[in-house]
């Protein structure tokens, strides 16, 4: 019964993925991709990875989807042709891709029985300061990865802003939104944020013990910000907005400072002494979530752009 459910889900995922690649029209491909992301997050639940499911739904499907949809809109406004002529039929390419899939499938069956590091991890978990093992890995065991990852976000944003045209540099981020006052979008924008902010903070808060954490929570907060901007409730800042820039770096900075403090106090770089580990992780997560929220939202909004009035 459960296997049939899994099989159906997998079949659907593969079919939607195929539709994403083969379907006609960029817009359609992106819609399929969003559906794909949602289905994938169900798959993550099935694999027992609820943290990943949340991240996939929020980031993989949600924000990435919005990012792509926004890009379609921007592309249309650039006056670039809608869709270049499709390439020639790719039989050899298709065979090569089938070969790659085949190789990976073969590898699955050729894998040795898992030697699980789970035991080491389980042994270390009580000293990690949090109960959710995924959070323990992200914020403590492999904190260096996570620190670098938060920096990756920042690097992408700096790179993205550089893509602005010189004449647009001092404009506000993204395209200006024109919303009918009192319209449905504005009402939605007013209704959602209180709930959204609550959900976001809640996700960060429970990340210590249960699925959730800085990334998932930060994403929800970013989404709230996006909706508010779309609804015209808040105006997007300019790249010179120093408060915002400070918000972008506060998370990595706190993280880094905690790491250096550990080194300076003799515990070691990024070492969180056991008694204060829980508190430290929570503090880092709060700061990180703020930065992630701001950075993700800016990533989706895009570089500053002067609106083209029709």
């Amino acid at each position, binding site marked *: 019964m459960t296997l049939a459910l899994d099989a159906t889900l997998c079949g659907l995922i593969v079919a939607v993925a195929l539709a994403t690649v083969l379907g006609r029209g960029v817009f359609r491909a992106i819609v399929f991709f969003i559906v794909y992301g949602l289905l994938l997050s169900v798959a993550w639940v099935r694999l027992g990875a609820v943290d990943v499911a949340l991240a996939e739904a929020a980031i993989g499907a949600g924000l990435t989807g919005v990012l792509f949809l926004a890009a379609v809109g921007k592309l249309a406004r650039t006056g670039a042709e809608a869709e270049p002529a499709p390439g020639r039929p790719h039989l050899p390419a298709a065979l090569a891709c089938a070969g790659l899939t085949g*190789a*990976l499938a*073969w*590898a*699955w069956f*050729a*894998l*040795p029985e*898992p*030697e*699980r*590091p789970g035991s*080491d*991890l389980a042994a*270390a978990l009580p000293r990690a300061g949090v109960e959710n093992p995924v959070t323990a890995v992200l914020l*403590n*065991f*492999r*904190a*260096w*990865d996570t*620190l*670098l*990852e938060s*920096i*990756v976000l*920042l*690097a*992408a944003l*700096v*790179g993205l*802003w*550089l*893509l*602005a*045209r*010189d*004449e647009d*540099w*001092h404009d506000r981020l993204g395209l200006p939104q024109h919303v009918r006052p009192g319209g449905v979008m504005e009402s939605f924008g007013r209704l959602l944020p209180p709930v959204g902010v609550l959900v976001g903070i809640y996700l960060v808060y429970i990340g210590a013990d249960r699925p959730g954490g800085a990334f998932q929570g930060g994403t929800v907060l970013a989404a709230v910000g996006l909706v508010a901007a779309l609804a015209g409730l808040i105006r997007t800042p300019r*790249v*010179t907005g*120093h408060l915002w*820039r*400070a918000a*972008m*770096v506060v998370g*990595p*900075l706190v993280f*880094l400072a905690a*790491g*250096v403090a*550990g*080194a300076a106090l003799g*515990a*070691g*770089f*990024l*070492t*969180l002494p056991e008694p204060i580990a829980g508190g430290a992780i929570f503090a880092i997560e709060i700061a990180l979530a703020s930065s992630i929220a701001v950075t993700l939202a800016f990533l989706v909004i895009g570089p500053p752009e002067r609106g083209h009035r029709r």
Partner: protein
Amino acid sequence: MSALVAVLVLPLAGALATVALPGRAARIAASTAIAATLAAALALAAWVAARGVPRLEIGGWAPPVGIAVEADGLAAAMIVMTATVMAAAGLSARHMLAPGAAGARAAFGFWPLMLLLWAALNAVFVSRDLFNLYVGIELLSLAAIGLVAIEGKAAALAAAMRYMIFALAGSLLYLAGVVLVYAAHGALDAGLLTDRTPARTDGLALALMTVGLMAKTALFPFHVWLPPAHGGAPAPASAMLSALVPKASFVILLRLWFDVMPDQATEGALALMAALGTAAVIWGGLAALVQERLKLIVAYSTVAQIGYLFLVFPLAGGASAEMPWAAGAWNGAVFLALSHGLAKAAMFLAVGQWMAARGGDRLEDLRGIATAMPMTAFAFALSSITLVGLPPSGGFTAKYLIMTSAFAAGQWGWALVMAGGGLLAAAYLYRPVAVIFARAEVPDSPLPSRGRQVVPLILAGAAVALGIASAAPFDLLSTGRPQAAGEGL
């Protein structure tokens, strides 16, 4: 030990500061971070040379739970080379970012991206964890792509886009290999993996990672993104991109093939890598021969020079690993990577100053520039000597070591590649050298100050000095690497 933390943390902190602070303060923060990181890099090298390999288990968690970083001789040497190039690029860039609208945008982006690139390089050089390396090379790629796009012109954007496609594809292939490794062994740490029980999937995993890293290193036939990207970026960015970025993925390749999975190195695979390197030497050299823009000549030369690096695999890997000549080949390749980094950065910085003075980098634009700017011209000539592999230079020492290993191994074909590649390099570098030293009416243009002109000369001098005083760098390189120590042949 603290130097190891410092080289990781300082550029990151600097990058965060440059993002958060306004214009002038950001520049001061960047300068401070550059100086501090340079000092930390030198301190680290001194530490490694004196006391051996520092190892840091980050967060106090030993693998497989946590991530370990180690600064062996290879890492320390690369970090010092990176710091040198970065400091030079930073010095040159300060004056390149003019005020005005374009300046504001570029000035905002350049410093954070440069420092992020630096942080990523240092992180990659010391990391012992395969997944951490993935995050590191992603950070590296994103920062590098940003630097390519910084000019904002259509050509630069197309180059950045193409680079992005290759970089992303490379990252994903590498990630695929990492996934297979973790699935098979439940570990990501290089040390743990060295002692693993080999699995049947290891060959596939290594192949995937290797192809991905080759794409990032721009080895033939994955090189097409490199010349437009490096040729289109502003000179200090090109210097970093060409001198440093390919080295990061090359160092990972070295670690994979010599430390992590030496058991998977079959003769055929090793020979194939060297064959691709050979193709790169030939293709890059021929392409450089027909370019009319100096930056493209220099960029294609990077394609060719990267090819040399891959000759190390059949000479020091597989069955050769235990042989007396392996050390020579390995040291030679690393030496080549180091001296190429210094020389290539010197070239790009010199060309950048000439472009500022003459308004273009077509060979005809640069005729006779040596009269106006003799020091940079001399730097370019010295760098050419290193790239051609003429004595006395780091390039020559490397070439001699690799060629000797090749003959000793009975694989003299690779030695001929080295020799022929040197001639090809001489051919394509002769044109620019002859043009810049030719006599010409020099149009009046403001020249950069002597202090700035001397920067490329210092880099080129370092590349040459690497050949004259190679004993100390050699000892450093062999630190933490018993196979590479000793006399070799």
